[in-house]
C-alpha cells in the first residue's frame, strides 16, 4: 500500500524519455486541471489526471505508480494556464527517479510564483486588452467581437500550454532557475501594461457623465427687427434704437447676433428703422461643461479612484462595490421623484 511517507521509488533506474505524443496528450489534458476543483485539495485530482499518461509510462512497476499517484494527490493549486510548466518539470524529475521529498518541494515551490505571473499575464493583461477591444466591437454590433476574442485568447493559451510543456520537460531543473531570474521583471512589465490599459479603458469605456443643469437666474438680450414707416413716427421708437436717446451722440443698441440698431432716412417721407426687442431668457450652468473644462472623463476617473480606495484600503469585496454603484446610480436618478435625475 502506497503512503505519503515514502521517500524513494523501488525502481531507481531512469525511465526512457517520454515521446512527443504523450507530451501533447498531457498538454491537452491540462485543460481539465480544475475539473474536480474543491476547497480541500483544490486542483490535486485534476493535476494527477493531467500527468497520468506520463506517470504510467515512467513507472512501469505498479507499486511505484501507486507511490507516484499518491504523492501527486496532495494539495495543489497553480495558475491553470501555466500548469504545463510545472508538469514538465515534475515529469522530468519523476523520470530521473529523484527522491520524493525533492519532487514535492519543487512542486510546492512552483505554486506561488507561477500564480502571480499567470495572473499578471492572463487576467491583468491579456483579458483586459482582448476583451476590452472585442467588447467594444460587440457593443457596436459586430459578430467578430466574440470570435476575435476566442481566437486571441485560445491562441495564447495553447501556445503557452504546449510550449511550456515541451520547454520545461526538456530543460528539467534548469528551467526553474532561468524563469526565476527574470520573473520579477516580467511580472512588473506585465503589470505596467495592465495598469496602462486600465487607464485607457477608464477613458474609452467610461460613458458616465453628470448631465445636471443648475438654473442661474435670467439674462436679457436684444433681438433685431427692421420696419419701414413714415419719418414722423420714428421719434416714438428712438428708445428702442438707442441706449440713451436724449444724449448728444446716442449709442445704438446691438443685438445678440451683432446687428446694430439705426435709422436710415429713405428720403421719400419714410425711414427704415432697425429697432431692438428686449428678450428675457433663463441661464443654466451645465455641470458637464464645467467638469469637461477641468478634465474630460473626470466622473469615470473619480469613481474608479473611489472604488480603488475602498477595495484596497477599506477591504471592500467586489460585491460591496457593485452594491455601492447600484446605490449611486439609483440615488442619482432621483428615487421616487424626490429630485431631478443627474444622469440627464
Amino acid at each position, binding site marked *: 500500500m502506497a503512503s505519503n511517507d515514502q521517500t524513494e521509488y523501488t525502481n531507481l533506474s531512469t525511465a526512457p524519455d517520454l515521446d512527443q505524443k504523450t507530451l501533447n496528450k498531457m498538454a491537452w489534458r491540462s485543460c481539465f486541471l*480544475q475539473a474536480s476543483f474543491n476547497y480541500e485539495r483544490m486542483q490535486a485530482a485534476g493535476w494527477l*489526471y493531467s500527468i497520468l499518461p506520463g506517470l504510467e509510462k515512467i513507472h512501469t512497476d505498479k507499486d511505484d505508480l501507486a507511490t507516484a499517484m499518491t504523492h501527486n494527490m496532495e494539495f495543489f493549486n497553480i495558475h491553470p494556464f501555466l500548469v504545463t510548466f510545472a508538469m514538465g518539470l515534475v515529469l522530468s524529475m519523476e523520470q530521473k527517479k529523484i527522491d520524493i521529498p525533492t519532487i514535492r518541494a519543487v512542486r510546492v515551490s512552483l505554486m506561488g510564483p507561477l500564480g502571480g505571473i499567470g495572473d499578471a499575464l492572463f487576467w491583468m493583461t491579456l483579458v483586459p486588452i482582448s476583451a476590452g477591444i472585442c467588447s467594444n*466591437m*460587440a457593443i457596436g454590433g459586430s459578430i467578430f467581437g466574440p470570435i476575435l476574442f476566442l481566437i486571441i485568447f485560445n491562441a495564447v493559451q495553447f501556445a503557452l500550454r504546449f510550449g511550456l510543456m515541451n520547454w520545461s520537460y526538456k530543460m528539467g531543473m534548469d528551467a526553474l532557475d532561468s524563469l526565476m531570474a527574470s520573473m520579477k521583471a516580467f511580472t512588473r512589465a506585465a503589470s505596467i501594461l495592465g*495598469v496602462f490599459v486600465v487607464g485607457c479603458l477608464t477613458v474609452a469605456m467610461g460613458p458616465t457623465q453628470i448631465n445636471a443643469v443648475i438654473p442661474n437666474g435670467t439674462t436679457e438680450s436684444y433681438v433685431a427687427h427692421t420696419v419701414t414707416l413714415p419719418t414722423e413716427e420714428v421719434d416714438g421708437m428712438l428708445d428702442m434704437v438707442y441706449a440713451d436717446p436724449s444724449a448728444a451722440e446716442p449709442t445704438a443698441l446691438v443685438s445678440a447676433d451683432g446687428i446694430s440698431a439705426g435709422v436710415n432716412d429713405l428720403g421719400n417721407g419714410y425711414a427704415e428703422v432697425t429697432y431692438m426687442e428686449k428678450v428675457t431668457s433663463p441661464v443654466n450652468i451645465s455641470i458637464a461643461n464645467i467638469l469637461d473644462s477641468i478634465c474630460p472623463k473626470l466622473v469615470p476617473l473619480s469613481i474608479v479612484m473611489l472604488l*480603488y480606495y475602498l477595495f484596497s484600503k477599506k477591504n471592500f469585496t467586489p460585491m460591496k462595490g457593485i452594491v455601492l454603484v447600484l446605490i449611486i*446610480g439609483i440615488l442619482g436618478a432621483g428615487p421616487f421623484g424626490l429630485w431631478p435625475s443627474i444622469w440627464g
Partner: protein
Amino acid sequence: MEYSALQVILVFIVTFIAAIDQFSFLESLYQPIVTGMVIGLILGDVQTGLIVGGTYQLMTIGNMPIGGAQPPNAVIGGIMATVIAISLGLEPNIAVATAIPFSLLGQYGVTLIFTLMSPLMSVADKYAAEANPEGIERINYLSMTLLGLVFGIVVTLFFIGGATMGQAVVDAIPLWLSNGLSAAGGMMRFVGFAILLKFMMNRDMWGFYFLGFGLALVVTNTAALATPALLILALIGFGIAYWDYQQRTQLGGSAPARFDGGEEDGI
C-alpha cells in the same frame, strides 16, 4: 415571450458547457461576450446578445479569478442578462444591472459545490493508492458533469420561469428606477477596473495609469483614431512595458558597470 422546447434544451446545453468551461477546458467559452452572442442566436436576436454580452464583459473584466478568489458568477450573470434583455425587451445596461442578483446566486452555488466536492478526495486517495488511473479519470469526469448539471438546471428554471414572471415586474418599474439601473449598469465596469488596479497597483505604477488615461483622452478625441483607439493605445503600452523589461533584464546588470567606467574616464 414563449420559448420552444428546442430553445429551452439549447439554453440548457449552452449553460452546461459554459459551467464546465469556467474552470476547465478552454476557459474562454464561458465569458459573457461569447455566451451573450450564443444565447442571442438561440433566442433569435444576435444584435441584442452582442451588446449585452459586451456590456457585461466590461463589468467582469476585473472580476476574474485573480489569486483564486471567487468573483460573482459570470456564467449565470451573462446568460441571464442576455435572456432578460431579449425576452423582456430591456435596455442592455438595465438588463446587466438586473442580472446581478443571479450572478451572486451563482457565486454562492460555486462555493457550495467546491465544499461538497471535498469528500470526493478521499475516494481519489484510495484510487491513487491502488494505482487505478481509470478511477482518477472517473472522478474528474463525474465532477465536471455535476457542475454542468447544477448550473444547467438552475439557469433553465430561471429561463422558463423568468419570462412569465419577469414581464409583470418590468411593467411595475418606475422611470426613476430604470434610469438609476441604467446609470448603475454603465458604471459597473468601474468596479472591474478598480479591482484590477487593486491587484496590480503599487507606488511606482500610478504614473502608468495616468499616462494611459491622458493618452487615451488624446487618442479618443481624434476623430480619425477613435475607432482603432484601443489597439493604438495597446501598442504604445506594449512599447513602454517592453522597454521597462529590457531595462531590468539585459541592461539592468550592465548599467552600473558602465556608470563606474564613465567615472574612471573622468566624464
